[in-house]
């Protein structure tokens, strides 16, 4: 029995949340559904840790769904990159669920609790599936599973604008996914296979055809919509801004990261570096758009009055940093990009959780609500500041580490590198500007609202775990840097 379980861990990783989801929907008892969802996520997290260890010591492993050999059956392929991402996603999902129990009381109608957890688990399963699968079409299916449940999650928001935001995302997300589908179709036309490894080995023969180039373009654009690369980001601020706090935390920490993972997988594993960057002007395009993303995202963040929007625009800028890392096309750059995915998930998760605490007390998160919070909610604000410092890239926080590697990677690129370095630094300064506005309101202005007191422990504990993690991964970088380095090496080779 135990052996069967152990040998099927990769499948369980995804199936556990996927099968618990309908269970939650059927039980419909508030406390029980939370417990089920939490246990499923926790179990998934535990499996992720085990698989990560396994892959780190013994190298990549392949799991055949239903015993069918690849390339005919669906293969789950675990290597250094996706176990790292799975670890991140499942850890963040666990933290989010701890936060969710109390947080959704104020933001979602009680009769929808079960539905919320169902959608959450489906979304989680979808994200895990995208990350773990070795089959291109399977990736599309999981992408749609997670997307559809994301639309539902967003529409739970109290504000009516959550509905329109969700609808807008649905339209854009579906177009993106359909483009991905077209691209995969083209690849299948040319190679007759859907297995990623098989695709990678068969594509070189037909590389020099317009069909493959078109497939590449469709896939890149489709995924760029999902990961909110400038200028395809317009769905993101409203989706993050009006979704319930818990959902925002989860999306910010995992969803865009997984989309970036999928992009990396297609560019590096399936199409290969030579085609992606040699045949296509991808470096130039990505760098140009990422730099614009950093500037436009940071500048927009400065002028927002709703703090959720501030952080959402900041996410767009941060996605820019990750994409810069990928576009630099070196192990160092790619490693920095992956590292920033990891660190950013933690920092943004922490900040959105702090925001969720404020939301819990005041029912909104405008800049006015933050006035005087330094006195009335000291713990919440302290966590927020820690996350903010990370976002700016202060040393001793995780954000510094990833920016450090990013700058080192950029410096390898001569004059273009200097432009990137300047972008990163100006981006940091702009981050100071938008974070400082909030800090100033919280610590140096008198409250306008009736003070409500500190957030409950149930919210503070997960928030502070992430705040401490932000600091921890700024000091002890063994896990994060090694994980990212190994992942980058497995894609390109060479050292960080």
């Amino acid at each position: 029995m135990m052996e069967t379980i152990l040998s099927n861990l990769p499948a369980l990783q995804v199936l556990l949340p996927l099968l618990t989801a309908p269970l939650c929907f059927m039980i419909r008892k508030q406390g029980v559904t939370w417990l089920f969802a939490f246990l499923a996520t926790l179990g998934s997290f535990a499996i992720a840790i085990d698989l990560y260890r396994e892959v780190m010591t013994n190298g990549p492993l392949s799991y055949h769904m239903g015993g069918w050999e690849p390339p005919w059956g669906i293969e789950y392929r675990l290597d250094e990159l996706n176990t790292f991402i799975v670890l991140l996603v499942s850890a963040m999902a666990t933290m989010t669920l701890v936060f969710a129990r109390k947080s959704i009381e104020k933001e979602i109608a009680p009769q929808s609790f079960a539905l919320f957890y169902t959608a959450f688990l489906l979304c989680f399963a979808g994200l895990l599936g995208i990350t773990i699968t070795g089959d291109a079409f399977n990736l599309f299916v999981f992408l749609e599973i997670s997307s559809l449940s994301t639309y539902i999650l967003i529409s739970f928001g109290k504000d009516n604008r959550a509905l329109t935001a969700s609808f807008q995302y649905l339209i854009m997300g579906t177009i993106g996914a359909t483009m991905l589908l077209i691209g995969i179709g083209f690849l299948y036309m040319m190679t007759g296979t859907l297995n990623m490894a098989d695709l990678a080995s068969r594509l070189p023969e037909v590389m020099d055809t317009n069909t493959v180039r078109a497939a590449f373009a469709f896939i890149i654009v489709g995924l760029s919509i999902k990961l909110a690369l400038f200028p395809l980001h317009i769905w993101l601020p409203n989706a993050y801004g009006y979704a319930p706090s818990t959902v925002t935390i989860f999306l910010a920490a995992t969803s865009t990261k997984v989309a970036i993972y999928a992009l990396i997988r297609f560019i590096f594993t399936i199409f290969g570096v030579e085609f992606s960057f040699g045949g296509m002007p991808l470096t130039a395009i990505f760098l140009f758009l990422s730099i614009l993303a950093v500037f436009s995202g940071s500048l927009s963040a400065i002028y927002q009055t709703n703090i959720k929007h501030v952080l959402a625009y900041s996410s767009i800028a941060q996605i820019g940093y990750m994409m810069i890392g990928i576009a630099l096309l070196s192990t160092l750059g790619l490693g920095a990009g992956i590292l920033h995915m990891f660190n950013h998930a933690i920092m943004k998760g922490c900040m959105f959780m702090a925001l969720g605490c404020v939301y819990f007390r005041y029912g909104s998160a405008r800049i006015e609500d933050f006035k005087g919070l330094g006195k009335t909610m000291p713990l919440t604000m302290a966590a927020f500041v820690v996350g903010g410092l990370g976002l700016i890239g202060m040393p001793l926080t995780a954000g510094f580490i990833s920016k450090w590697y990013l700058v080192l990677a950029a410096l390898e690129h001569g004059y273009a590198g200097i432009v990137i370095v300047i972008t990163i630094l100006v981006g940091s300064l702009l981050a100071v500007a938008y974070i400082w506005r909030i800090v100033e309101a919280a610590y140096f202005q008198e409250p306008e609202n009736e003070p409500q007191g500190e957030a409950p422990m149930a919210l503070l504990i997960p928030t502070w775990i992430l705040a401490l993690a932000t600091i921890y991964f700024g000091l002890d970088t063994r896990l994060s840097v090694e994980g990212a380095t190994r992942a980058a090496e497995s894609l390109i080779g060479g050292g960080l």
Partner: protein
Amino acid sequence: MILPPELMMPATVLVPFIGVILILLTRKFPNIREAMTLVTAVTTFLMVLQFLPGVLEGETYSYTFAEPLPGISLAFSLEPLGMLFALIASFLWIVTSVYAIGYMRGAGEQNQTRFYIFFAIAVSFTLGVAFSANLLTLFVFYEMLTLSTYPLVAHKGNTAARDGGRVYLGILLTTSIAFFLPAIIWTYAVAGTLDFQPGGIFDDNVNAVVAGALLLLFFYGAGKAALMPFHRWLPSAMVAPTPVSALLHAVAVVKAGVFTLLKISVYIFGADLLLDLNARDILLYIAGTTILLASLVAMTKDNLKARLAYSTVSQLAYVTLGALLATQAGMEGSAMQIATHAFGKITLFFCAGAIYVATKKTEISDMKGLGRAMPITMLAFFIGAMSIIGLPPTGGTWSKWYLMLGTLESGYLFLMGVLMISSLLNIAYLLPIPIQGFFGGEKDKPTVFSEAPLPCLIAITVTSIGCLVLFICPELLYELAALVYLGAL
């Protein structure tokens, strides 16, 4: 030492934080709270002092906290320059604490607990800067010092204070992130290490253009050194209560800036490399210009604190200049200037605060004849001014002497001229204040003796005597300064 020596350094930096807890616990009882501040300050000073014999004998202490990036750690290591800076900062904290008791009560400031707390935190970070073993650690404490002093600068909480605080924070953070941080990363990319090492860390065959660019980035990155045109934050910071201006903007913060520059010149570049760089010439002229221009601007200011602020900008450029000269006398003079200027300028700020507390006067033109009402204050002001100008019998004489010698040694006669003109300008904008104080005004008015509160007077006396003592026995100071130069070889 109670703890093993390597643990003493982090312990020393932690002492002010323990003080913070004590201050918080006793916040309801102002007398005990201020006693706690004093106890903490004295303890900190003693903790720093115990390193002195070892450092003089050439011992080095080091302690590593963590190593977040391969080859780059968060670590402390104590050498003569850091020792000098830590000694001055921790000693003057005691004096300032005494002074603050009189001032804060006398001026009726709000939020005094917050004031004492952030003051202690700022001192702790200053010690962190002094103890840093590499550029990254220094950068961390440098930034935290900036952040922790913002609440002190914006203490009054009104619009003027907040605007001043914004300029303060804006310039300091911008320069450090835009120049300092890239310089650090670039240095790492070039040299492969960030540790401060005697004689510098660059290879002999390092690209001169790159090294020159790095030098420029570092000297503007340490915005706290207030090299023109990034000096605006210092006058803006004068909205702070006077004890803050005194300790932070005559000693801790600004000296953290020039300390950083001197330390980088000595332990990152080294004298030999510095002498080869063209960028050094550019910076020397910028420093010279800053000295003269800031003195000229100081003459136009009628507000006493503003005049002192510009005087500080000018005097800081002396340290920068000395560091860049990279000769023995130049670097020694630079290190000594850190100490003598600290004593002189803190005295002047104390006096400005004492005048404000006693009479609510802030403009120089209103201070004629004030010497008859506040003789001690005015006398101390006179001594402090002498030290800033560099006249005997005050400590400033020595630092100015060595700096002049340095310009001679390196053959920059033009800069020697700058120093001489600057001394004249110093006389012109500082000495009229005590002279007018004693001899100006309406003499027939009955004189009412109205000095500042006693704690203020004690502090003023201590620092002005300090100026005199530095003249009579400068041996210790010189010894440390000489060790600093040895490190640059």
